[in-house]
């Protein structure tokens, strides 16, 4: 029914009294938003919760969508905010936070015996090594690399979503790529 419509048209329909139209938005973007959340949070459960919260928040604030940006950018922005909120909560709670996990993964990178590249390759765990590499990045670098590589957002979209200057987004991306290269080098994953 809504397949032929663009995201913006669907949102208009939802605002005109067809709330079920929003279901199509969820179907279109749930995987991408989940991937984005997972890329930032690195925990399945948290990513799933953050994705749900993202769509719920979007639905509740549908009238706040002015149509100035694309629906996808709007959703990404909400998702990133959800992830940042969750990271703050984890810090407040003092639980085994995402940052702790980040530190744990970072430490594991410099423990050759534990994560032998050859062994990982043998077990087909190359993707796990990349995941660890991304997870070992500081949160602010992880956000931009995931938004760029997972969601293929433009620099401007990332800048808008994170409320950062364009130049900061570029410099963070450069630093993130450089650190990833260094970490993957340590794993000898055929990165030049």
């Amino acid at each position, binding site marked *: 029914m809504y397949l032929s419509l663009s995201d913006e048209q669907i949102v208009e329909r939802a605002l005109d009294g067809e709330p079920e139209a929003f*279901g199509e938005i*969820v*179907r279109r973007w*749930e*995987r991408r*938003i*989940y*991937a984005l959340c*997972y*890329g930032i949070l690195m925990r399945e459960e948290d990513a*799933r919760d953050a*994705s*749900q*919260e993202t*769509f*719920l928040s979007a639905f509740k604030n549908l009238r706040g969508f002015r149509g100035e940006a694309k629906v996808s950018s709007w959703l990404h922005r909400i998702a990133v905010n959800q992830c940042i909120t969750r990271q703050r*909560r984890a810090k*407040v*709670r003092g639980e085994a936070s995402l940052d702790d996990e980040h530190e744990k993964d970072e430490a594991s990178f410099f423990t050759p015996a534990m994560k032998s590249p050859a062994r990982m390759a043998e077990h087909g765990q*190359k*993707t796990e090594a*990349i*995941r660890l*590499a*991304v997870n070992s990045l500081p949160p602010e670098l992880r956000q931009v*690399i995931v938004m*760029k*590589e*997972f969601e293929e957002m*433009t*620099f401007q979209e990332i800048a808008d979503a994170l409320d950062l200057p364009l*130049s900061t987004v*570029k*410099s963070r*991306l*450069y630093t993130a*790529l*450089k650190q*990833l*290269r*260094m970490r*993957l*080098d340590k794993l000898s*994953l*055929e*990165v*030049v």
Partner: protein
Amino acid sequence: MSKQICPQSESLVAYLYDEADVKEKISFERHLSSCDSCSEELTAFGFVRSSVKEWRDDLMSTIVTKPIAPLVTQERKRSALVAIREFFSLSPLWLQGATAVAAIALIALLAFVALQMFGNKNQQPTMAEKEKPSVVNPSPQLPKENDNQDEKVAHQPEKKDDTNIVDNPSPKGENKRSYKPKTNRNTETAKHQNKRRVPKQQTPRLSDEEIIGDDVAYNAVDDSLRLSSLLDKINPNNN
């Protein structure tokens, strides 16, 4: 890997992601021909990107089996308990401490109020106390008197006044009659208890001590009577 950051790093990123405008693109391509560091980084970053995309594709393939859409509708039905839990998860340590102190204060207040109420109840005569006089001293007047009077009567036995006992030897029949108007089951029970406990002299008893004193008093009277009759027999001239 280059140790120094080339001032063209931002242009490198823009070029890498194909977001450089035409002018910037031409300018950076010229720079690349003369900067080995940027050239090497561009290649290395390309591998990094392909690795990250490989992981992303792997991740995306696993998401297929876990659609979020149904969960979003479930999420809308989440209880207030979850909202409260989230509120506390966000609250700082001082707020959690303040909540705990407030809870303890509330419990203490409730305990104090309960104690006050319980204390007041203790001051009022209990049913057992009300029953006690009717059991101990079933005099004809007692059923007509109020509770306070009952209490007074209940405390009388402590005086151990023999005159009371002598002056108040109401016969059994009278006792029964005086109890008739009162239909209280407790007093009825008391009567039955009296029937069992009242000795041959048909004197109502106040307590065990009283019973002992009672018996002694009556025995003394009996003895004196016998002695006087004996004296009369010995010395009939005395009269």
